[in-house]
């Protein structure tokens, strides 16, 4: 009897070691159990990804060049009109998707998986390393993130790399803590002791027992971190702390709201609304995916994350 949900999975991932294949297979069979909202989320996310990847093709105009009159209404040449400087808004949206997704995914990948790895290793090794890490995590999580975020990026200067680095520094602690807690709980189970008795080495235990327990939770967390990072970047940009050359949606909001008579003119309809809608749409898609993923992986999730 094949342990895979379908043979397609097996052939696609046949080159990976069997334990990783099982994880992918579980993800795939789990995905098929997604509800409607989850599928909508996935669909929407993939649209955004397409938008980001094919931005040069679908934008029509370059996002940072003046291609029209200032504050043109949406029309033939410019689908969503132009901003104060005459730059095409639709192009800015398309390229902005790149910025949001890049930052979100970069931060989530490094902070989520990196932090998770640190948590697992510290819990596994135990001893001094673990105690020190616990302290560091505690303090990091006790620091108020938003004010510090603002001030540090103010001082360090606006650049995409800076923003990513700072966000990583603020986001790694939670996945590390959760991964650590999970690892600790797995470590105490009798089957670990039994496996050790049979001569299992550390790498085997990590690979076969600990990763499969921790990975599902980390996956859900990673999506959460992506959302947070996107919001944080947008927030920073909105406050004027983002990279002025980057075409992120937050930056668009910043320019739009800084325009002196934005609220007394109809310009906000095509300058302010698109980035607003785009941000909300992307965040909702991620939220749908995250909730469904959590529900699907539920029986395997033992440490529940807070329903905040």
């Amino acid at each position, binding site marked *: 009897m094949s342990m895979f949900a379908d043979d397609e999975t097996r052939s696609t991932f046949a080159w990976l070691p069997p334990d990783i294949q099982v994880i992918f297979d579980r993800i795939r069979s789990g995905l098929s159990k997604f509800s409607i909202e989850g599928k909508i989320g996935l669909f929407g996310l993939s649209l955004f990804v397409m938008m980001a990847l094919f931005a040069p093709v679908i934008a029509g105009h370059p996002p940072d060049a003046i291609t029209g009159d200032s504050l043109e209404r949406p029309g033939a040449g410019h689908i969503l009109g132009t901003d104060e400087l005459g730059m095409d808004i639709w192009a800015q949206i398309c390229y902005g998707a790149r910025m949001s997704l890049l930052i979100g995914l970069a931060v989530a990948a490094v902070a989520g998986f990196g932090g998770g790895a640190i948590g697992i290793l510290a819990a596994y090794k135990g001893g001094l390393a673990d105690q020190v890490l616990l302290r560091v995590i505690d303090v990091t999580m006790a620091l108020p993130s938003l*004010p510090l975020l*603002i*001030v*540090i990026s*103010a001082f360090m200067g606006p650049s995409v790399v800076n923003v990513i680095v700072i966000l990583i520094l603020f986001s790694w602690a939670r996945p590390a803590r959760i991964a650590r807690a999970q690892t600790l709980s797995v470590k105490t189970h009798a089957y670990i002791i039994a496996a050790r008795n049979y001569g299992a080495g550390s790498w085997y235990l990590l690979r076969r027992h600990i990763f499969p327990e921790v990975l599902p939770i980390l996956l859900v967390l990673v999506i959460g971190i992506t959302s947070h990072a996107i919001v944080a970047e*947008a927030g920073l940009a909105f406050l004027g702390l983002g990279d002025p050359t980057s075409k992120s949606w937050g930056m668009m909001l910043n320019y739009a709201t800084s325009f002196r008579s934005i609220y007394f003119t109809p310009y906000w309809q095509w300058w302010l609304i698109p980035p607003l809608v785009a941000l909300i749409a992307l965040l909702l898609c991620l939220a749908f995916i995250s909730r469904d993923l959590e529900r699907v992986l539920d029986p395997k999730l033992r440490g529940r994350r807070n329903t905040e």
Partner: protein
Amino acid sequence: MRENRAIISRFLLTLMILLTINFFLPRMMPGDPFSLASSDVEGEDVVVMTEAQRAYYMEYYGLDRPLHEQFIIYLKNLAMGDLGKSISNKMPVSGVILIHLPWTILIVLAATIISTIAGIILGTLSARNRKKGVDRFMMAGLIAFAEIPSFLLGLIMLLIFVVQLRLFPIAGAITPFANYTGILDWMGDVARHAFLPVLTLSLSQLTGVYLLTRNTLITVTTKDYIRTARAKGLGERIVWTRHALRNALLPVVTRTGFMVGALMGGSVLVETVFSYPGLGMTLRSAVIARDYPLIQGILLVIAVSILVCNLAVDLIYRRLDPRVVAQGG
């Protein structure tokens, strides 16, 4: 007591790290923050300092002294409450903060109270009608709300209620140059201005309180001690208030405490959206104007008040829940 000491020591450690970060920040900047002319962002005001001002800052920060001495000067200044002089406002930083802090406190406290009460009421309603239409509807709606970040929510509110419907003022905490007919009139004006920021902040926290109340209540009502209380013939009212709520509201109350801290930090964005002259907005202007003493001062005030809030909650929680006291943290 041991656990209290652990909490306090963690607080102090975090505080020290905060102060240290705060200390090093301006010193990490590329270039000299106190050059006579600064600003490289087009369209922003150029900050120009007089020699006298520059001398003041050299003295205040001890910029000509070695680093560890600067740190001691820094701590000494803090202990005396001297946060320096704001470059852009040309008055002491503490003065600037004191002008704007009350507005932030107003909306933060109002939002805390409103979201807590509304969250508890809605959560209780949901819990009592579990799985029925009311519950499902509220769950779906509020969870969708929670995903939208506060400042975007604020923008939407702004666009709908201010721009389209013209129901509320567009900026500020009070109408400038207004003549008030009395204290009530003044309060009304303040309320009109504060309404949307408070609403936005409340909505951003509402879902959290709602879910917590709902889920805790549902869990509590299935507990054995509720059955014991019913068997004692105490009557629904007493069972509900003395036994169920008392256990269920514990986490909610502590969450409220943490909420104050979170809102203090998050008010920056919402105040900016509504141009509400609280501490958050002041921080933003300070950032744009590169007014470093002011930035540091505001950061300190916000961060320290968040830490103190959290500390208070941690300590109070231990007194409220007897189980936690015994477990050794």
